[in-house]
């Protein structure tokens, strides 16, 4: 009797355990099943967007218009093919054949990429080339001035030899004449060569040099202005950081106190400066900036 009961109990237990496992398995499968369903709807949206874009690209984009007026038969053929790809893509996506639709869209996009580059907006390109020429020319002139200044300061004769002025001048003048004639590509090419020449010369002149930029001021007034600017930059940053929540109530009030203290110190510094006592004013400003540094660090700036 006991043995039979024992078996019954064991069977009931095993049954309950199997139910539990089945439940766990079902829940896992259910969660796994929902993910592909999301991906399907995403694919449809993605294809829809791509089709819309290709539609605009082959029919109404400036690139398509430029190709149509170009007179280049081969390019027009490729544009026709791209339009054809779009039509097929629309058909396939209506039938929900997303893989095929994508293949056609991709081909269409690749075609348009290759073709439209041959028919760039001439006016825009010309404008960009002119801007580039002016920019590189300004760069060369600035660096030549710097080079001359260095050669003079160092007083070493060999520095002058690092830059062949005659060659540089001839490069620049031929670049300018090309520019005036309208050959912008050549002009930019020559100007780029001139820039590389000056850059190399400058790099040779300053090779392994160390320049010390001392914190020295012409007058106390200048140093006072420097400290004002420095304090202003800290105020600007702490104002920006005020929108962020500080870690705790205690630090919030501490930060507010520090900001207030800086404001008072600024007033004191202004008063001292008006009296003409710049030295004391500078020290007061430095104190104020230190207070703001602490406030920034408490608020989370890492420096």
């Amino acid at each position, binding site marked *: 009797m006991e043995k039979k009961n024992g078996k019954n109990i064991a069977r009931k237990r095993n049954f309950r355990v199997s139910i539990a496992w089945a439940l766990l398995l079902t829940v896992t499968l259910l969660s796994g099943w929902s993910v592909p369903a*999301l*991906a399907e709807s*995403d*694919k449809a949206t*993605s294809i829809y967007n791509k089709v819309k874009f290709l539609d605009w690209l082959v029919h109404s984009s400036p690139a398509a218009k430029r190709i149509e007026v170009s007179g280049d038969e081969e390019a027009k053929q490729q544009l026709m093919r791209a339009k054809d790809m779009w039509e097929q893509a629309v058909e396939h996506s209506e039938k929900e054949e997303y893989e095929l639709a994508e293949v056609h869209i991709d081909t269409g996009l690749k075609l348009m990429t290759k073709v439209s580059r041959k028919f760039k907006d001439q006016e825009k390109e010309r404008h960009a080339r002119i801007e580039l020429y002016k*920019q590189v020319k300004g*760069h060369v002139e*600035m*660096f030549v001035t*710097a080079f001359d200044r260095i050669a003079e300061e160092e007083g070493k004769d060999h520095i002058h030899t690092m830059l062949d002025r005659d060659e540089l001048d001839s490069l620049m003048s031929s670049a300018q004449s090309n520019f005036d004639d309208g050959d912008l590509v050549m002009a930019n090419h020559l100007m780029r060569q001139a820039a*590389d020449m000056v*850059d*190399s010369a*400058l*790099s040779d002149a*300053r*090779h*392994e*040099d*160390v*320049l*010390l*930029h*001392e*914190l020295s001021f012409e007058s106390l007034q200048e140093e006072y202005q*420097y400290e004002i*600017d*420095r304090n202003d*930059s*800290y105020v*600007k*940053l702490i104002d*920006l950081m005020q929108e962020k929540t500080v870690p705790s109530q205690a630090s919030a009030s501490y930060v507010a106190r520090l900001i207030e203290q800086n404001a008072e110190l600024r007033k004191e510094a202004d008063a001292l400066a008006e009296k003409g006592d710049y030295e004391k004013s500078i020290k007061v400003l*430095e104190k104020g900036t230190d207070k*703001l*540094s602490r406030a*920034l660090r408490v608020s989370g*700036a*890492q*420096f």
Partner: protein
Amino acid sequence: MTILRNLITSTGAVVIVFMLALLLVNKESHSADPNQFNRLLAPPSKRNPPPTLDGIHDADGPGAAMLQTPKSAFDILPKSKSGNYVDWVKALDEKKIAPRYDRNDVDAQPIVMDLNIVREVKGSMPNVVYPHKQHTEWLDCSNCHPAIFIPQKGANNISMASILLGEACGVCHGKVAFPVSECRRCHSQPKKKSTGAKAAAK
């Protein structure tokens, strides 16, 4: 025996509930232990997360899953303590990466300027050493001059706040180049008692 089994089951249930509570409460920290040392600091395993888990890429979109995980690229690169956790300058020096200097020409070499600018700073912080060499290996002169830095002594006022605001050095450092949380990488020249016209040491 039944009592023991019941005890095991109930302990297990309590453990699950407890761990769940801990996880939900400590969402920000990476460990379940509330007294974990450095509990808000992301451990190395959580740094450089893959695109599907990084919170910026849309994990449900098709793109995120196709993108390369940063860790696979960073494995062979020298490590650093901030930013990407990669020392990019060292990676270039050790030739672990070979980024092109010209869009089409694979062999183009940069014109490197080896010039150090030592900027004296107020207070007790060591002076800042700005090395042109490491910068010109990556950038062109026109990237900084004259738009961001006027190439003239005394013409550029830079404060820590302005860097944090994204001006001057902060145009790149704190955005793409290493952030300014490691002071010594820039403030690397201790002040001498007397400052001469040109400092000797680099």
